[in-house]
C-alpha cells in the first residue's frame, strides 16, 4: 500500500533534513511514499487564531486532495500539521453542518476517510516491527526524548500516548540501542512561534529544556517537530546566553537517530544542516 505524505511548509524549507530523513528511513524499508499533490498550508497558528472556518477549510482541503488521490493513510511528520489535520477531522466528524460549509468552501468532496499518522505512529506501524537485525550501528547514547506540545495534546482529540508523561518516543529509541533518560521537560513549551518575535523568551524556555537534558546526562535531544527542532537547535545562541554557558548537545529528529542506527549515510539524513554540530 502507498502511504500518503503531507510535508507542510517546514519540511520543504527550514527542516529539509526532517523530510530527507523520513524519506530515507521509509526507503530503507521499502515503504512507498506519495506526496499529496497541490497541497496547501495547514493553517497552523495564523489561521486558527483568526477564523475558525478557514482554519478547518485549509486542512480539510489537504484531506480532500488525499481522498481524491486515492490515499487511505497519510503520514504528517510535522507535529503542528498533524495537530491541525487531526483536529479538523475531529471537528468535521461531529458537526455535519460545519462539514457541509467546508465542503462547499473548498469545492472538493470530503468524507473523512483518510487516517492520519504522526511520525511515531508511522514508524511504529511500518518500521519498528521489521527492525529485527537492521540496527547495524546501535545509537548507544543517553537521549532525552522531547515531545513538545502538539504531538500529544489535546488528548481528547489525538488519543495518542499519555499527555503528561508520554512514552512512545522513549520506547522507540530504546529499540535503536539508545538509553532514554527520565526527565521533566518532555512536554514543556519550547517557545514555539515566539522564535522570531521574542527570541529571548525562546532562549529562556528552550534553555530550561536543554539545561535539564544536560543535567541528567543526555548526549542528544530527540524531537519529532520542526518547530521544536529550530528552537532547540537554531536558537542555541539565545539558549546559551540564557544559560550563561555553551551547551553543545545536538538535537536530532527521531528519523535521523533511527537512520544513524540503520547505518544510513549522514548526508542522506541531512545531519550537516544543523546549527549545533551533530557529534553523536
Amino acid at each position: 500500500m502507498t502511504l500518503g505524505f503531507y510535508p507542510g511548509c517546514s519540511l520543504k524549507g527550514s527542516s529539509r533534513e526532517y523530510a530527507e530523513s523520513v524519506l530515507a528511513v521509509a526507503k530503507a524499508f521499502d515503504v512507498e511514499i506519495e506526496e499529496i499533490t497541490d497541497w496547501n498550508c495547514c493553517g497552523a497558528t495564523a489561521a486558527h487564531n483568526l477564523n475558525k472556518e478557514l482554519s478547518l477549510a485549509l486542512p480539510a482541503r489537504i484531506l480532500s486532495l488525499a481522498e481524491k488521490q486515492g490515499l487511505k493513510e497519510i503520514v504528517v511528520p510535522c507535529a503542528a500539521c498533524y495537530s491541525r489535520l487531526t483536529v479538523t477531522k475531529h471537528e468535521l466528524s461531529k458537526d455535519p453542518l460545519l462539514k457541509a460549509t467546508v465542503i462547499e468552501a473548498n469545492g472538493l468532496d470530503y468524507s473523512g476517510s483518510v487516517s492520519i499518522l504522526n511520525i511515531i505512529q508511522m514508524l511504529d506501524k511500518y518500521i519498528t516491527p521489521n527492525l529485527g537485525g537492521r540496527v547495524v550501528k546501535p545509537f548507544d547514547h543517553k537521549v532525552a526524548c522531547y515531545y513538545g506540545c502538539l504531538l500529544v495534546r489535546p488528548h481528547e482529540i489525538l488519543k495518542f500516548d499519555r499527555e503528561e508523561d508520554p512514552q512512545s518516543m522513549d520506547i522507540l529509541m530504546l529499540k535503536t540501542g539508545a538509553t532514554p533518560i527520565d526527565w521533566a521537560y518532555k512536554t514543556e513549551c519550547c517557545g514555539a512561534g515566539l522564535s522570531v518575535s521574542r527570541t529571548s523568551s525562546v532562549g529562556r524556555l528552550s534553555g530550561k529544556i536543554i539545561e535539564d537534558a544536560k543535567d541528567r546526562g543526555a548526549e542528544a535531544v530527540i524531537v519529532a517537530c520542526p518547530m521544536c527542532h529550530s528552537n532547540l537547535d537554531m536558537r542555541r545562541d539565545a539558549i546559551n546566553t540564557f544559560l550563561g554557558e555553551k551547551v553543545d548537545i545536538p538535537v536530532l529528529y527521531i528519523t535521523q537517530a533511527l537512520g544513524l542506527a540503520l547505518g544510513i549515510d549522514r548526508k542522506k539524513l541531512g545531519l550537516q544542516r544543523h546549527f549545533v554540530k551533530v557529534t553523536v
Partner: protein
Amino acid sequence: MSKIGVFVCHCGENISATVDCAKVAETASKYDGVAFSVDYKYMCSDPGQSLIKSAIAEKGLTGVVVAACSPRMHEPTFRKACAEAGLNPYMCEMANLREHCSWVHEKGEATTEKATDLVRILVEKVKYNQSLNEIRVPVTKTALVIGGGIAGIQASLDIANTGHKVILIEKDPSIGGHMSQLSETFPTLDCSQCILTPRMVEVAQHPNITLYTYAELESLEGFIGNFKAKIRRKSKSLDEKLCTGCGLCTTKCPTKKIPSEFNEGLGNRPAIYVPFPQAVPNKPVIDRIHCTYYTKGKCRICEKVCPTQAIRFDQEDQIVEVEVGALVIATGFNIKQTDFFPEYGYGKYPDVITGLQFERLASASGPTLGEIRRPSDGKIPEKIVFLACAGSRDPAKGIPYCSKICCMYIAKHAMLYQHKVHSGKSYVFYMDIRAGGKMYEEFVRRAIEDDGVNYIRGRVSKIYEKNGKLIVNGADTLLGAMPIEIEADMVVLATAGIANDGAEELAQKLHISYDPYRFFAEAHPKLKPVETNTAGIFLAGACQAPRDIPESVSMASGAAVKVACLFSQDELTREPIIAVVNRQAPPAYSSCVGCFLCVSACPYQAIEKEEIRNRNGELIKSIAKVNPGLCQGCGTCVAFCRTKSIDIQGYTHEQMYTEVLALLNEY
C-alpha cells in the same frame, strides 16, 4: 346515588372579596348529586367544621367538597372533620378558591364563574371517590447499620441507647473507619484516637449492639419495617471465642512485608494481623491472599504458637440472615490515590503523598511514631508543599465537586508540620479557602498568621524530581499569575474525596439511588438529607457526600432519630394514595399481561412480580404487584401501563377523566 355536600368558604373576605360565594353555593346546589350546599364565613373554624359535621349526619352525605383555600393548607383539617362525623376522610375533596382564584383574579363574573367551575370539577370527582383506609404495616424493631466508621458507630450507639437492637456490620477487621487513621482533628487539634476509641469500646460492650466485623451485606429484601438482610461474615480463620487477643500469632507470622492498609502503605503488617493496636475487636484475622499457608500450603506457624488453639484454617464464610425494620448506611468514602495525577508523576515519586498518608506520618501511632519523615529516605522535610483541590473542582478530571474537608485538613497538616519541624517551611497552593464552620476560619487564620504557613492562591501545573528534590511548578494568581517554582522535599496532595469502592453495587443491593459520582442520593437535598428514596433506609456520613467528623456525627444522630421515630410505633400507617394493580376473577386474574415495563419505571422499586399458581403449584400467570409498603403514590406506572391495569387511589383514571370532562362541559 351520591349525596354530596358543598361548603363554600368566604375565608373572611379573602375569597368573598372577589368571588360571589353565595352564588357559587347556589349554582352548586343545582348540580346532579349535590344534596346540600352552603356558604360560610370561616369554614375551618369550629362552627364551620360543625356545619360540615352536622350536614353529614343530618343529610347522610356520601361526599364532601370544601371550596376554600389550597388543599395543601387545610385538606387534613377537613378530612379529619369528615372522619369525626363518620364519613371516610378520603370522600372529602377541596376546591382551591383562594390561592388559585380569588387571590389571583379581579372581582368580577369571570372570577365567580371560574370558582363555580372549580367546585364542579371536584363535585364530579368526588362521585368517583372511594373510601380508603390507611395502610398499616408492622415494624421489626431492630436496625442494621452498615459501616463502622464514626458515622456508623454514632448511629449504632444512638439507636441502641433508645433501647432498640442494632446489628452493626463492618467490612474491615476492626471498626473505626478513616477517623481511626487520623492524627489530630481540626479545629481543636485533639487526638482522633483519644476521642474515638472510647466510642468503639462502647459499641463492643453495648448489650443492644451485635457487632459483625469482617462482614458485608450479601442481599436485602423487603420494605420499611420488614427487611430481610443476608450478611456474609467473611472467614477470619479464627475461633473468636477461643482467641484471647494475646497477639503472639501476629509477632510470629513469617510473612511480614504486607503494606498496611491502616498505615496507607507507609508501614507493613503480617499476614495474620490486627489492623491497629486499639482495634475493636482486638482479635486477628488471616489475610488469605498473602498468607503462606493459603498460597503455598505450608507454614501454619500461627496455629502452632496459639496458646488457645484458636486458629481455624478450614473456616468458611458464614451467611447470617437477619430481620430488621430499618437500615442506616454509613459506608463512608475513599480518596483518590496519587497515581490518578499524571501531572504530579502518576504516583511514581514516593515523596508525593496523599492527605491520609500524611495523617499516618503525623500520628503518634503511625509508622514514624509521629515524626514527619519522608517515605523515600526517612529524612525530615525542610520544605513541604500542600496542594488543595487535587482532582476536586476539576471537571476535566471528572470531579467537579468540592471535597469539602481538604481546606481544613490541609491547614491542620501545615500547622502540625510547623509544630513538629520548627525550622521547616510549608506552602499551601489553594483555589479558594473554604473554611465555613464553627471555629474553622479562625483555625485557618491561625495556621497562616501564628504558624507562618505560606498560602499561595494558584494551581500547580507540574511536579518533577530533580537532584532529590521535588520541583513544584505553580502560579500565584494574586501576583498576576506569576510563575512560582518551589524545590520541595515532600508534597502532600489533598486528593479528592470519592465514593467508596463498591458503592454502586451496594446501592443496587439496597435499591437506593446514587448520584453521578456514586455517592448515595438523599431523598431531598434540603428537607430529607438523611432519608433515601427507599423508605426505611437512611444515610449517615460521607457515603452521601464528602463530610467532616462533626457533620458525619450529626447526620448519624439524625438518621438514628429517624430510626427511633420509626421504632416508636408498633405499626406504621401510610396514606393510602398508592398504586394498585387490578385483580379479576379467574381465568384472567388481572388485566395485567405481565410485561413488567412498569418495574423499571417505578422510582421506588415498589413493583414486584406476583406469580399466580393453581392448586398443583403450576404457574398460571405472572402479574405486577405493588408493594404498599414501598409505593409512594407518584403514579408514574399508571400513565405508563398499556392495559390500564394499574390505577392510583385518590387519582384514579375515572376521577381524572371525569375532572377533564366536568371542566369543559358547561352545565
